C-alpha cells in the first residue's frame, strides 16, 4: 500500500519530543532519534546534537529496510528489534507502529537491558501518538501549507 503524507503539527511534535526526552533520561541514553521508514528524521533528543542526524536517519531506514528484507527471506514478517554493539557506543533500533523507527544511542553508562525495558514503554507511547497523527490526517485530509502555493513560488525556488 502506498503510504500517505506525514503531517506533524506542533502539538504532535511536542508530544514526540517529550517522550524521547524522557527516554533519554530513563534509559541513561546518549541520544534518541525518531526516524520514519522512508529515511526522514522526525525528532531527536539527547547530547549528540552535533551528529549528522540527516545521514543517521537515511542510513537507519536503509538498515531497517535491509534487515526487514532479510526477515522475509527467512520466513519472518520482520525483525522488530535491532542491536548494534560498538567499542564505545551502541545502537538500539525498534520499529514503532508500521512506519517509524526509534533509535537509541547509549554507552557504558547504560545497559542493553535497561534500554530494552525503557524503549518498550516509550515505543508504545510513540505508537499511540503516530496512530493519532495518522487518524487526524485522514479525518482532515491534512491541510497542506502547499495548497496555496503558486507556480511562481515554485519557479522562484529554482532561480539561482
Amino acid at each position, binding site marked *: 500500500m502506498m503510504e500517505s503524507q506525514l503531517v506533524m503539527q506542533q502539538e504532535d511534535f511536542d508530544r514526540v519530543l517529550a517522550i524521547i526526552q524522557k527516554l533519554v533520561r530513563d534509559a541513561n541514553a546518549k541520544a534518541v532519534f525518531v526516524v520514519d521508514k522512508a*529515511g526522514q528524521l522526525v525528532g531527536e533528543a539527547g547530547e549528540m546534537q552535533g551528529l549528522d542526524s540527516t545521514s543517521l536517519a*537515511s542510513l537507519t531506514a536503509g538498515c531497517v529496510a535491509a534487515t526487514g528484507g532479510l526477515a522475509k527471506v527467512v520466513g519472518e514478517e520482520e525483525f522488530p528489534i535491532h542491536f548494534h554493539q560498538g567499542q564505545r557506543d551502541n545502537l538500539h533500533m525498534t520499529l514503532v507502529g508500521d512506519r517509524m523507527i526509534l533509535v537509541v544511542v547509549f554507552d557504558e553508562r547504560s545497559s542493553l537491558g535497561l534500554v530494552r525495558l525503557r524503549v518498550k514503554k516509550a515505543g508504545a507511547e510513540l505508537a499511540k501518538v503516530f496512530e493519532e497523527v495518522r487518524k487526524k490526517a485522514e479525518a482532515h485530509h491534512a491541510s497542506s501549507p502547499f495548497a496555496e502555493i503558486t507556480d511562481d513560488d515554485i519557479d522562484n525556488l529554482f532561480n539561482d
Partner: protein
Amino acid sequence: MSFINYSSREINCKIVYYGPGLCGKTTNLQHIYQKTNPDVKGKMISLATETERTLFFDFLPLALGEIRGFRTRFHLYTVPGQVFYDASRKLILKGVDGVVFVADSQIERMEANVESLDNLKVNLKEQGYELDKIPYVIQYNKRDLPNAAPLEELQRLLNPTGAPEFAACATTGQGVFETLKANAKGVLADLKKMGS
C-alpha cells in the same frame, strides 16, 4: 511520501534516481554534490563496493530554499542498477515522491534500459504507485558518446507517454540540474495538488 513538519517548518521530499547499471545515476548525484553551495547540501553517502559500484544506495540531502516560510528539503537517492540487486531497489523506492529515470544512450544498452524501466514499473506497482501518476522525468545520459542512439529512438522506446525528458552528459554536468529541477518542480506541484 513527503513529510511536513510544522514545528521546524520544514518539508522533506524523496527523489529516487533509477536506471540500468552504469547509466550514471551516481555520477548525477556527484555532480549535484560538487556544484552545490556547501550551506545547502548535507553529506553525500555512497554505499558502494570496492570497485565503486553502488551496493545499496547513494544519498544526498539538499535544501532548496523556502516556500511560504517552509524550508524545502529534497533527499536524493540512487538505486543499485545491477539486475541482481532488485530486492534493494524495492526498499529504496519506499516513500518516494519523485522518480528520475536515467537511461544510458549507448545503442548496446538499449535492452538494459527497457528492462530497467519495466523493473521500475513493477517495483512501483508493488508499493501501490503508478509511474504515470507520480512526478517522473527521464534523462538520456551519455549523449557525448559516439555510439549514442538517436534521441528519437530513445523517445520511442523509453518515453511513449511523453514525460519531461532531458539530454545529458552527467560527467560534464550537462542536463543534470535541468533534470533535477524538473522533477523537484513536479514533486512540489504534486504537493500543491494534494493539499488543495
